[in-house]
């Protein structure tokens, strides 16, 4: 295989994210699951918040899709992105199915109305969603580096740990069955960075965007963990940042 321009950068971003993947706030939830301290209400909180985040990916990817121009990337890159959109939609369906199957809610409409599944602008979840949506104005290679070689790797790590810890076959299956798709998103991110990030300025943007995405995803995971375990700890104050677009 010819030497690809972004190979070292992709390796750097993957290694850094993998090193952080088993030290996220979700480890507290995994420990609680192992101790048998996660009852139906806590499981509903977990699935409800993750479902809410997955729903918001329609909004994030909608913005990103608008920023894909004709001929700026080969069709294969756009095909992979469309596959990622479908996968994210599948995961949203899995979380909704789980809420219905476990009897947490009676109908889809109930799931939308329930506080555990509602979207609030004043939340770590919203902060992360708007942070990702903000990347719509950056080249596709940079935002894919940010998400697929950042939060996606953290997610792969904690989700594997959570799937191993959960005994309930329905909930275990929800997390376990996502692994193939999540791993393919990481591989897609690696491929895009390796092939399309060649200039030093773009490499720096990838490092910056990846760090921002992971920081904001970490804020969401902190909020999620506190919410699931009933600690209700407020998220740390948001850092001041300039709006550039």
């Amino acid at each position, binding site marked *: 295989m010819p030497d690809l321009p972004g190979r070292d950068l992709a390796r750097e971003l993957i290694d850094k994210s993998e090193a952080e993947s088993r030290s996220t706030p979700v480890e507290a939830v995994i420990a609680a699951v192992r101790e048998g301290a996660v009852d139906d209400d806590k499981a509903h909180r977990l699935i409800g918040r993750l479902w809410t985040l997955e729903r918001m990916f329609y909004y994030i990817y909608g913005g990103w899709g608008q920023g894909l121009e004709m001929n700026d990337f080969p069709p294969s890159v756009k095909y992979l992105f469309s596959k990622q959109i479908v996968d994210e*939609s*599948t995961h949203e*369906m*899995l979380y*909704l*199915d789980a809420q*219905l*199957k476990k009897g947490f809610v*009676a*109908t*889809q*409409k109930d799931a939308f109305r329930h506080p555990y599944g509602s979207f609030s602008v004043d939340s770590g979840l919203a902060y992360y969603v708007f942070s990702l949506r903000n990347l719509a104005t950056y080249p596709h290679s940079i935002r894919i580096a940010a998400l697929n070689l950042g939060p996606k790797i953290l997610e792969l790590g904690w989700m594997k740990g959570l799937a191993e810890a959960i005994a309930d076959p*329905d909930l275990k*299956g*929800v997390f*376990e*069955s996502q*692994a*193939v*798709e999540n791993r393919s998103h990481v591989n897609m991110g690696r491929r895009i960075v390796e092939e399309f990030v060649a200039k030093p300025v773009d490499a720096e943007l990838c490092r910056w965007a990846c760090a921002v995405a992971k920081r904001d995803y970490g804020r969401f995971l902190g909020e999620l963990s506190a919410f699931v375990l009933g600690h209700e700890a407020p998220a740390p104050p948001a850092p001041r940042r300039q709006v550039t677009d």
Partner: protein
Amino acid sequence: MPALKINHERCTECRMCYIVCREIDINAVYVALEPLHRIEIDMEKCTYPGCTACLMYCPAEGSIIEVESGRSLVPPPPEAWQEA
């Protein structure tokens, strides 16, 4: 009772059946918990022939079949348009 199942040789996984089944709160169509995440029909929840909504929305000929007879119900046969 007659029942429906997905014919994965023909199904395009477009998810129209899932969407309509959720929308009318029957919730019989679900995503299987396996890596392929194929669409399936829960026979315990499906109310066919009382409800035939998924048959009306499915765009892929032959992708929903009657379990007992094995016959395709997409496009829906004339009796599917009548009240059960």
